[in-house]
């Protein structure tokens, strides 16, 4: 049972602090129960000097000893007063993450909670769009028009371009494959059927998801972080009525229109390749395309866009309203919204494919 005493230097800085630490480290023997630093000579302590004191205190504590000091001069009294709690307290350990079982359980609880929230949002939206207007609680037509302009009109160029290029690429690649069989004219059928059933709807929805779905999530998340959502609630305004339903309704209106533009532009892209590169007369390509157009395919594509629109808008709103954690949270929910959009679209697409396959073959 013994106590070690050490004098500290006049200036406690990075160099002298390290020297002091090494002295404590080298001089520590079994049986020593405490280290007392005599600060009488010390007139000045800088930041690295303070950090070395913490290191010394931590070392002594790790050896089961007690750390203390005495004799501080007036010049460093304030410093030591502010610093003392950190020297006396045990270092705070980083929080341990939950175990595997906890993570699984929490994951299930979170999933259930989020599913309930999403279901509530969907039901609320159905009420505010489908029932409330008949109870005299009007829709915000101006907001719907603004949203439709932003989501629809401003997306026309990119939707046109993406589908046009996709049509061009598919025509280019498929024509090469069927060239040996002299069946290049059937590329027109392929483009028509492919875009009517699948590509126009999916490609347009992917563009809209990346553009509008992300924007919805980011906008609502930012509003929540900046307490604008709370401000609206504080005014007695229903968030679903005021913010969610105009977005959902606007997207349900504009996505089928955009998809139609996508269909036309995709067929145009294919036609450009067929007429200019493959050398077919425009009238023949047109007749072939028209011959491959079936109402069932067009209805399938149209119905899909309605479900895609609902999914994109609701998932965007759901994620935006669930944000936590400031700016980082906004980025996370925006990414999550787009990923969920695309996954959900694929699921909807599969369900449609199965349904129409068994219904019409």
């Amino acid at each position: 049972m013994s106590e070690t005493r050490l004098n500290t230097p006049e200036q406690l800085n990075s160099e002298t602090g390290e020297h002091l630490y090494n002295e404590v480290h080298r001089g520590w023997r079994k049986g020593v129960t405490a280290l007392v630093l005599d600060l009488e000579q010390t007139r000045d302590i800088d930041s690295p000097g303070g950090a070395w004191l913490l290191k010394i205190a931590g070392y002594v504590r790790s050896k089961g000893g007690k750390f203390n000091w005495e004799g501080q001069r007036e010049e460093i009294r304030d410093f030591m007063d502010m610093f003392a709690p950190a020297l006396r307290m045990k270092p705070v350990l980083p929080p341990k993450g939950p175990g595997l079982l906890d993570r699984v359980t929490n994951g299930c609880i979170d999933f259930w909670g989020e599913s309930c929230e999403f279901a509530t949002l969907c039901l609320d939206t159905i009420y505010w769009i489908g029932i409330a207007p008949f109870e005299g609680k009007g829709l915000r037509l101006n907001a719907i028009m603004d949203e439709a302009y932003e989501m629809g009109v401003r997306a026309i160029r990119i939707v046109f371009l993406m589908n046009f290029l996709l049509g061009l690429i598919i025509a280019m690649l498929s024509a090469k494959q069927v060239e040996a069989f002299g069946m290049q004219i059937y590329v027109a059928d392929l483009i028509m059927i492919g875009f009517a059933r699948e590509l126009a709807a999916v490609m347009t929805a992917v563009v809209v998801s990346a553009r509008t779905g992300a924007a919805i999530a980011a906008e609502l998340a930012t509003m929540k972080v900046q307490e604008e959502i709370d401000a609206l609630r504080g005014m007695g305004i229903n968030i679903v009525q005021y913010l969610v339903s105009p977005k959902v309704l606007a997207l349900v209106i504009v996505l089928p229109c955009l998809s139609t533009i996508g269909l036309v532009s995709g067929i145009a892209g294919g036609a450009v390749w067929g007429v200019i590169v493959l050398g077919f007369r425009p009238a023949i390509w047109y007749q072939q395309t028209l011959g491959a157009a079936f109402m069932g395919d067009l209805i399938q594509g149209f119905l899909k866009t309605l479900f895609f629109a609902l999914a994109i808008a609701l998932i965007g709103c759901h994620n935006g309203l669930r944000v936590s954690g400031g700016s980082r949270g906004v980025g996370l929910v925006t990414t999550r919204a787009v990923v969920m959009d695309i996954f959900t679209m694929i699921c909807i697409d599969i369900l449609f494919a199965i349904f129409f396959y068994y219904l019409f073959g």
Partner: protein
Amino acid sequence: MEDTIIKVTDLVAQYGDFKVLDGVSFTVKRGEIFMIVGGSGCGKSTLLKHLSGLMRPVSGEILFEGNNIAAMDEDELAEMQHGIGIAFQSSGLFNSMTISENVAMPMREFGGISKTLIDDLVRFKLSLVGLASSQYLMPGELSGGMRKRAGIARAIALDPTLIYFDEPSAGLDPIMAAGLDDMILKLRDMLKTTFVIVTHELDSIRLVADRILMLDKGKVLFCGTLDEAMASPIERLRQFFDRRPDEYITQSNME
């Protein structure tokens, strides 16, 4: 060592055609707590952004330790900014990092500090602002006052010679605000740092300021010690310290 750390001469700043700062000149002495005060919209925060190099002036000169900030290129400006600390009104903490990671960030990026010492240095800085036990908390888990103190801990991470502080007491209760003022005084004495603080909290000004600069409509109305300010016959200054509203506000209220 030169006594003056900042010298501003004929500083002009404008947003579009609107002159926010119009011929502002003053000096800040090394080691003092210099407070920039004035009504809302008088150009305080704009001045602070110019002093810290976040904005470039339209004309005029800002000398920091003899070097003109306005004439620095990007690299020189970044080098200068490593030597100053900025504590923002809303703390400016990175929400994705813990408090200790926030404080350690400038040390790891620019400090040239041994990795073995960084953790202890972070704990040291946090202990100076009374947050040693909160080092693993996320900024979102802190109260307003704790966030401000964490912001200061990050600002002092590299032992800057100068700290800019925007509205330290804004949004804090009087006890918390008084604690923050007391901490600024102690940090100044311990770290020998110069503080330039933008505020309009009268209590803070009375308790902490060595000298004050009062701006009004983008111009310097007064620059001097608190005693000189209290004795000054300048009407706008008297109005500020007496908390008297503008005439037009009183009249419009009566109408």
